[in-house]
């Protein structure tokens, strides 16, 4: 095959590769322009579902959690159900835990827990494997 043919193929290959790279980077630029940062709830949801393999739903019978300004969810890990509510700050999360304690007849010291701006209500005190699995997903 002649050198001229090789030149043509090399030039075309360079153009095709440059075009593909352009599409790749252009696609990134478009996504960046349209992208809205995911909410904290979406991040927690994605982590629990994708990294922990858990099934997540809305807390149907927890009006306090449902009122959390940044959202709430419930999931079950190793048979232990937990309701997670996301508040605006740590104080609000502590306040939610206090409300759980007031409204629940039994002692919830080991089950209602505030961590940073999140409140957790566990059906049973979480075990050493359950707690880090859920807390590790918090933003």
């Amino acid at each position, binding site marked *: 095959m002649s050198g001229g043919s090789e030149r043509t*193929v090399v030039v075309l*290959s360079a153009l095709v590769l440059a075009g593909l790279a352009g599409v790749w980077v252009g696609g990134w630029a478009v996504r960046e322009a349209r992208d809205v940062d995911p909410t904290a709830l979406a991040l927690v949801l994605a982590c629990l579902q994708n990294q922990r393999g858990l099934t997540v739903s809305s807390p149907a019978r927890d009006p306090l959690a449902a009122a959390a300004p940044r959202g709430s969810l419930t999931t079950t890990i*190793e048979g232990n159900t937990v309701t997670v509510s996301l508040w605006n700050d740590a104080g609000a999360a502590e306040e939610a835990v206090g409300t759980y304690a007031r409204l629940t007849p039994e002692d919830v010291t080991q089950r209602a827990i505030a961590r940073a701006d999140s409140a957790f209500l566990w059906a049973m005190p979480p075990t050493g494997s359950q707690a880090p699995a859920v807390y590790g997903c918090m933003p």
Partner: protein
Amino acid sequence: MMSTPGRWTGFRMAELAILTAFSVFLLRNALAYPFIAGIDASEHRAYAWDLAVNGQLGTSGSYYTPPGWYVLAGELLKLGDQLDLSEVELPAQLLSATLVVGSAILLLAATERVFPGRPWIRLWSLAIFCTCPAVVKPAAMLHPQPLVLFLTLLALVGLVSLLAAPRWTLQAGLALGLALGSAQLVRSVGLWIYAVAALAIAVAVAVGTRGTRRRTAAVGATALVIGALVPLPWYVYLQVEYGDPVFGGRPEITEGAPQLSRTPREGIPIRLPTATAEPRAARAPVSFFTATGLPESITHPYRGRDEEPFAAILLADTWGDYFGEWSWGMPTAALDPPDRQRLVVQGIVGVLLTFVSLTGLVALAVLVGRSLRHRLRQLPIVVLPLVAVASLVLYAWRYPSADDDTVKALFLLPAAPAFAMGFGFATDVVRSALGRDANVVLGSVLASLLLVCAHFGLA
């Protein structure tokens, strides 16, 4: 363009100069580089030492790696111990440097056979091979990869010699088979060149003339059978011991795996119910392979950020120091490089050089596809990088790692010669189309980029 004998001598002198500088460079690196900083250095040292001293096979986390290199390294560790060296690993590190220098020489031999009469391709291929950090870094380490690079190149030289020969001889087939088998006794990536050889031989039989086809098939089959028989005991051992002939039953990461909580009186473990019915093997998501990682892949080309994508890791590790085991710290502590700008420069230079290399390989693939019979000897150069990258993608997909540990440029080392030839081919074709002044500019720019890389490769 045909070259005159005088120009040939000039090319030989230039190659010799590069090889000499490369040898001194790698020797100095092997002497200066602390063995413990190398990739999985402690694992490899333990395996080699236990094999040489205690005769125990696969005692470290690298148990699934064939013992070929460990036999040599273990004896060199013993030598270092007998010589009472302050670092007993030094002879084994020097072995790595020697093997990579040997590989550079084999690269010249392979390039001569793949592109006969085109000295510029040899020169540029050698230049990028000798300056690419992905080649230079393991040459200073206590690691089996330089040996598998050497044996892959040995097999590649044998393969392209066979493909270029008008009549295939049994001796050449036997030699190729031994090289193919030996490469597999060092690392599982030694399988790549075997797969390439199998495809190339099949194509050679298919496009061969009626008169040569039977002989080609017989010699090719001999090479492939020997290449399979040599490592067979190792594969049988892994299958019997670990239930997997290649990966040795390396455990996969699972999602939502039930936790063993307690053991009842009968001694049978109970699994508590979980939200998922069955644990499923974790796999890298598609976005890991399609994302650009921009702009951080350019501005922060090192480990320590979440969600760094495949291509960005590979480029950063090929041309720079993504894992921090080379120029700025230990792998596990590599979160804050002291000279980020230098890594950024490497990343940008690496993108440009990779583009030239890929252009050459894509063009070569088109040319080989259009004229398979006449360009048969170039087929392995096109297929080897494809097999290597596909294997790396498969590995990264099957074993996703939170610290990106399963995506390393080191894994691609046996395919580095093919990438180098792609670079040399593209550069030579462009050179032949340009005038003298433009050639001086092109050559100066490329040489400058390569020198930037060479400087980075100084341990």
